[in-house]
């Protein structure tokens, strides 16, 4: 059972790291602000979500696990809000045709 949980941790955290990497590559390579923001949200949602999923078996007790999930949800909410604000600022600064 421990082995299965360990494998889950390694696989999920690695997948999460992959999405962070993909988000960073997108941030560096995509042509305009809105696409770059789009790439970043993938890192926030999927990347952090998978890292949290991988860490769940290692959390101390059900409260620790709930805390991790709350961190993921709050990071998503905060990320979505900041993305909206940035996108609005970008749209006024460089009007898209």
């Amino acid at each position, binding site marked *: 059972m421990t082995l299965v949980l360990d494998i889950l941790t390694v696989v999920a955290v690695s997948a999460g790291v992959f999405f962070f990497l993909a988000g960073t590559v997108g941030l560096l390579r995509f042509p305009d602000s809105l696409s770059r923001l789009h790439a970043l949200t993938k890192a926030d949602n999927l990347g952090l979500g998978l890292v949290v999923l991988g860490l769940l078996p290692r959390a101390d007790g059900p409260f620790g696990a709930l805390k991790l999930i709350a961190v993921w949800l709050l990071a998503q909410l905060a990320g979505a809000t900041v993305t909206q604000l940035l996108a*609005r600022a970008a749209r006024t600064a460089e009007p898209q045709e």
Partner: protein
Amino acid sequence: MTLELVFDIGLAALVLTVATWTLLARETTAAVIGFVAYGLLLTLVWVRLAAVDVALTEAAIGSGMTGVLLLTAAARLRATEAVANAEQPGATLRVVAALLCVSVFAGLAGIVLLLPEPGPTLAPQAAANLGSTGLGNAVTAVLLSFRAIDTLLETVVLLLALLGVWSLAPDRVWGGRPGPQGNVQRDGVLVFLAQLLPPVGIVVAIHLFWVGADAPGGKFQAATILAAMWILAQQAGLTDAPPVDRRWLRLVLVAGPAAFLAVGFLGFAAAGAFLAYPAGYAKPLILFIEAALMPSIAATLALLVAGPPARTEPP
């Protein structure tokens, strides 16, 4: 080499790289964004040093709130940035600036390298006297009991900073609302998020404030979250910054430092010294001060971001 060491070396290298990049960035906005990233990395450094209180403050105030203030300043400077960048300082000025920077650096490096081993510290005394305050978090005990005068002055400095910002307003808009008018476009998603986040933010802030007695947290971090929620609601067009001449607003701003001062003077009567707490009453008094300070600091920070009054009410 352990994994922790590899992580720490990588983190230190990253902090230095971002710091250098921030210094070399030619554009003000880019430099500010570099500064925010630097602050967030520094937060990780503080966590690695097991200074979670400092990490929370660095993330909330050092990186977050200061970053927003600097971004606003950068936006104001954008119109004149090209002219300012085109101005080249003379050779003498540059040499003097370089010499000053190098001597400050050399002085700091010398002090760090010459520190006695182990470094001088008051931590054992602070930990030994923690019991007299009734608190479980040594940082809160230092901030609100052993060195309460520093915290009192900090809150007064915040108020003075707000006065400084307000005094930049032209006479004709004095007493008006801060910030530009009519640029708020209400768009659905942002309004939804600005309605969803503040209740969560307020609960998190009160939690941070409450656990501050025994665990990392406290009024400053909590107040920053409250201020951020207020700013978010303003950005989404759900509410407007209040006119700066409102009596209730002035009262909220002053209440915290005033309560702190009152408790300080009470110390003369009750315990024989300024800011001394009578034995057994330290914890309730500290909680009272923190509870009074939190709304004042939150309002001050939010109004600092909102800027000087810029428009008067339509008659």
